[in-house]
């Protein structure tokens, strides 16, 4: 296992209470520039600028702001999914084509996004961000991209990570997406 800090994702697909697919833990590639800008601002106690999810340049005001937990139905904060397959770039500021919350065609129901209390072993520290996406749209939806939206306390919303991943979510299926942030000695 690599020492340092790494971001992974893992997902489950379930239907009628049964998990029928469980992915392995996969390494992400894609903290984007706003992650570094906000982390640098917090460590430096400085008001860095970043591009929010509306493609507007913003200046950090409060500096405690990696807020990721979100209520159900909120598709602009927390872990998010989309159908875009444009290659990830360091300057990405939003998903290419986000899937909206809802039960209409092409929509998924977003549950609350939770951040679990970190767990530790002698050599690792692990933080898990989880969210369920339920397909009640009446059709199959193919997720092609995943990401994490954070907010500061103004609030401005910004993307900190984006990855491409093809996940077929049939009607009636629940997608559980887990982001795993892990530090290893």
């Amino acid at each position, binding site marked *: 296992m690599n020492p340092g800090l790494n971001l992974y994702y893992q997902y489950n697909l379930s239907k009628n209470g049964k998990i029928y697919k469980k992915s392995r833990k996969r390494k992400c590639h894609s903290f984007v520039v706003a*992650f570094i800008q906000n982390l640098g601002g*917090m*460590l430096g*106690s400085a008001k860095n600028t970043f591009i929010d999810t509306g493609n507007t340049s913003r200046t950090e005001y409060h*500096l405690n702001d990696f807020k990721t937990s979100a209520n159900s139905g909120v598709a602009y904060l927390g872990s998010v999914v989309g159908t875009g397959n444009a290659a990830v770039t360091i300057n990405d500021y939003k998903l290419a084509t986000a899937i909206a919350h809802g039960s209409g065609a092409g929509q998924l129901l977003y549950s609350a996004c939770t951040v679990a209390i970190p767990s530790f072993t002698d050599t690792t520290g692990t*933080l898990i961000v989880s969210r369920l996406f339920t397909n009640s749209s009446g059709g199959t939806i193919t997720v092609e991209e995943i990401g994490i939206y954070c907010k500061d306390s103004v609030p401005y919303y910004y993307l900190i990570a984006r990855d491409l991943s093809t996940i077929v979510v049939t009607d009636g299926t629940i997608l559980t997406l887990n982001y795993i942030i892990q530090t290893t000695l």
Partner: protein
Amino acid sequence: MKDNLELKWNYEIKQGNKLIKRIRLKKCKSFTSNWAQTLFGTMSGRQVTMTDFSGTPVTFTFNASSYGGGADNSSFRVTAGATSSYGLVVGTGITAAAIADYAMDTQIIHGTGAGQLSHGTTTVSSPSATATEATFRITRIFTNSSGGDINVEEIGLVNLQVGGGYFLIIRDVTGTLAVLNGQSLTINYDLTTTI
């Protein structure tokens, strides 16, 4: 394979303006449990318990609005003046880094007395980005005016919480960095993310 968030360090030693030694960037290994707890607190908005630099558990909630705003309201702040209480710190201990570390093994205190180093300010550069990576640097200069030689063996990063207290978030054992009397030691931490 690169980490998603790479943490590296390097150092240089100078005698006046003359460069004595400089090394290339080396990979760090040692985010402590306080790092994960801080990240959890900021991401979740929930209460956390962290162990401060004196070994005391401290429970609090990261809530920017309750701090009233302003430039100092960072849960990760490491910028510091001439103090060894927080910022980039050094020590003489050689105990292996552990995830539960909350203090330096044997910290070197700010000053000009025997075994002490004068701590400059800890600065954090503005982030910069290329097409594939984004990065920033944390730096501090330590000057040896103690009258004797000092061997630095460990380095770390201590943040200042707005709610009060100092928390070790990174610690690494470096091997011996010999800083002779009259020399200065510059330590850099680089945090980089790469697509």
